[in-house]
């Protein structure tokens, strides 16, 4: 007979308020196999853990059931407790009587009864547990950063500084990301490029960092410490090793049809182009859709003018396959498409712009050379209306928009308003807002300065309609404070559009098996305690891919992700999960069905001599590579003879739980 100990936690009043913990502990005492049962206020506290340790020693327990919070919270804690008292950690089972019992039920009797059933199920399971020992795997000392914006760059720099090799994969021809497009940054108003470009250069020159630009992730296999990534490097048609970035080709190119994506399509560029002056790598790229050579087979002016001989129309895309120990997702964001909001006339007038477009219109390196001009006629706007929360904070059942607050809009709008009022004191600036949200160091002070010192007209209320009337934009909104409808004839309307995850994030999430929320933001392993890790081991999150953030937050998260990565890469080896599949060679038919469903290729076959009651001789049997197996159990259900079973979640363990629950 086994000797099981049951430990019922009160979790203060979290459990004890709806579950009679003493009654549960008493009832469990009479369960077969239970030799010790007790309750305690906080089982996870040092005293609580000591209680478990002492009981393991005193009662020579060979199984422990802790009735407490979710195993996702403290299973690891109690396993360690068991280990330190000399009990195999996998002889511990948790009955989740908090999240799945006390917190959802209000009736004491009901909660207590359910807690008892859950406790019995855990006791039934633990009786079928077997001591398990984890295997170990080596760690590839190299990290992959997906995305070369400020988040990716910062993570890469921090990891590289710690002495590990880092590859940055960036889908566009240059690193820099969204921050490179910004003019000034809040709340200090320092120039974005001035603080970003040195970091870009540093990343480029760092001996441990390798930039793979104009490239996309094709496939990722493997697991924490041992990922293999296939990266497709698209053809630039410009030899990166030869191009000096002189820019002559970009000037000579006769095609002027390509929209300049860096300037949010506000102007055009050549078919061969360098995204912006400080691009890294400073190498041209050919856009085949607009290139005359690719369209007609003629032209070739760039090639003729390139003294370095870097233009190569024959260049092919390249597939790189590399091994990594850790992967950092830094895929960033884009503004949502404002054209869905036709009440703001975005598609009807060039003078209705998004904030990121305004950023380019105000940038010295932008299409207007930093002079704020109306896109329609190049005149100075005298009346400017900013509309906040365009597509943010919409309800789930609304026809369009996102449910979340995009977080950065209040501050950048204050910045824009302030900069405009400073540069063009004769221009009136009105900001329609729902709430002005300014939590952050020096943020509220910044916003107040915009209103008080720069005379920005903040109107509490939303714009209902923007209509084009001649050269003017008629803005009709409500002022909730004065309880009046406001009409403004504006020259320029700026929409603070919501931000959304980059569209490539979803497929990357699928490739990495990293979970995402319904908005396609990556989910963190724990919203408070593990904010920079994905629940998928070895995958880390940096920047807006996890949720809306401003620059300082992004940089902080990038550094945090880096330190997690460094922690992982510095390990000699990783202790694996011992809850892996295992084939009983006497029962295995060798039918290969399990191999087909294994997502990791962890199952191979070998001919082996077996001596069992049903079969003696050599037969083909499945062998699981325990280092590769992640313990999903797909194989176990495919196996008709139940030869394949999963340690820690064995057929018998689960069936005992079923029996106990249905008893």
């Amino acid at each position, binding site marked *: 007979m086994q000797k099981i100990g049951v430990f019922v936690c009160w979790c203060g009043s979290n459990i004890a308020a709806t579950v009679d913990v003493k009654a549960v502990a008493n009832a469990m005492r009479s369960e077969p196999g239970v030799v010790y049962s007790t309750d305690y206020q906080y089982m996870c506290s040092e005293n609580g853990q000591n209680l478990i340790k002492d009981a393991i020693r005193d009662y020579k327990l060979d199984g422990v059931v802790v009735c407490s919070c979710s195993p996702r919270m403290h299973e690891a804690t109690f396993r360690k407790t068991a280990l330190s008292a000399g009990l195999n950690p996998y002889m511990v089972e948790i009955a989740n009587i908090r999240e799945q019992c006390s917190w959802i039920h209000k009736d004491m009797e009901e909660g207590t009864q359910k807690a008892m059933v859950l406790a019995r199920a855990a006791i039934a399971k633990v009786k079928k547990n077997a001591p398990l020992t984890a295997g170990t795997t080596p760690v590839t000392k190299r990290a992959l950063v997906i995305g070369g914006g400020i988040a990716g760059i910062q993570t890469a720099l921090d990891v590289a500084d710690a002495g590990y090799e880092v590859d940055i994969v960036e889908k566009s021809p240059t690193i820099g990301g969204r921050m490179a497009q910004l003019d000034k940054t809040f709340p200090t108003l320092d120039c974005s490029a001035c603080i970003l470009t040195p970091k870009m250069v540093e990343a480029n020159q760092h001996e441990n960092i390798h930039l793979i630009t104009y490239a996309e992730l094709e496939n990722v296999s493997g697991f924490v410490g041992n990922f293999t990534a296939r990266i497709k490097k698209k053809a630039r048609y410009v030899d990166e090793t030869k191009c000096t970035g002189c820019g002559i080709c970009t000037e000579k190119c006769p095609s002027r049809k390509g929209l300049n994506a860096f300037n949010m399509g506000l102007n055009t560029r050549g078919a061969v182009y360098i995204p912006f002056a400080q691009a890294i790598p400073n190498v041209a790229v050919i856009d085949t859709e607009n290139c005359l050579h690719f369209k007609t087979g003629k032209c070739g002016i760039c090639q003729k003018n390139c003294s370095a001989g870097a233009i190569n129309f024959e260049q092919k895309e390249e597939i790189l396959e590399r091994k990594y120990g850790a992967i950092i997702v830094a895929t960033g964001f884009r503004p949502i498409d404002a054209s869905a909001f036709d009440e703001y006339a975005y598609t009807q007038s060039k003078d209705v712009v998004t904030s990121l477009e305004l950023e380019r219109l105000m940038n010295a390196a932008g299409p207007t050379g930093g002079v704020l001009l109306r896109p329609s006629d190049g005149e100075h706007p005298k009346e400017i209306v900013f509309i906040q*929360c365009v597509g943010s*904070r919409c309800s789930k059942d*609304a026809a369009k928009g996102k449910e979340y607050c995009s977080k950065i809009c209040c501050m950048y709008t204050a910045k824009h308003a302030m900069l405009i009022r400073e540069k063009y004191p004769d221009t009136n600036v009105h900001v329609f807002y729902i709430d002005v949200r300014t939590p952050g160091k020096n943020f509220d002070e910044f916003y107040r300065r915009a209103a008080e010192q720069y005379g920005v007209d903040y109107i509490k209320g939303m714009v*209902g*309609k923007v209509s084009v009337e001649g050269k003017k934009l008629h803005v009709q909104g409500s002022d909730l404070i004065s*309880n009046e409808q406001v009409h403004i004839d504006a020259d320029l309307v700026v929409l603070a559009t919501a931000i959304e995850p980059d569209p490539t994030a979803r497929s990357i999430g699928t490739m990495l098996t990293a979970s995402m929320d319904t908005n396609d933001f990556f989910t963190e392993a724990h919203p408070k305690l593990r904010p920079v890790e994905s629940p998928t081991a070895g995958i880390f999150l940096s920047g807006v891919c996890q949720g809306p953030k401003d620059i300082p937050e992004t940089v902080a998260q990038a550094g945090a992700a880096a330190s997690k990565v460094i922690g992982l890469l510095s390990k000699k080896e990783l202790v694996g999960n011992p809850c892996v599949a295992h084939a009983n060679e006497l029962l295995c038919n060798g039918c290969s069905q399990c191999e087909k469903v294994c997502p990791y290729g962890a199952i191979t076959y070998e001919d082996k001599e077996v001596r069992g009651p049903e079969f003696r001789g050599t037969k083909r049997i499945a062998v699981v590579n325990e280092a590769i197996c992640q313990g999903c159990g797909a194989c176990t259900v495919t196996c008709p003879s139940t030869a394949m079973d999963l340690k820690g979640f064995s057929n018998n363990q689960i069936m005992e739980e079923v029996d106990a629950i249905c008893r």
Partner: protein
Amino acid sequence: MSDKITKEEILRICNVQPKKCMKCGKCSGTCPAYDEMDYHPHQFVYMVEHGQIEKLMASQSIYKCLSCFACLERCPRNVEPAKLIEAVRLAVIRQQGKNHMTENDVPALLDEELPQQAIVSSMRKYKK
């Protein structure tokens, strides 16, 4: 008073959840009949939520609403103020008995400034 119209009744008629409102004022920003109204669309929502039904029933706003549904269309929280108004109006009609307009009354009330939409919606509002 037993025949007092409650907030719950209004909400049952129109199936609107005023709690979803984040008080952004876009409904009022968008309303073409704003200046005619004593209470404005964003106030309807607030007033219903706070049970000020009688005040609303006595207001002119409920007749000024064109039922153009612009507020409903543009509300980022899908609160549907126009439906609230429709419900309040209905409550008035129910209380007063069948004294609502017939289509024959409409020509006499027509004036040149009247938007066509108002004529169409008046049919919906007053015709049985």
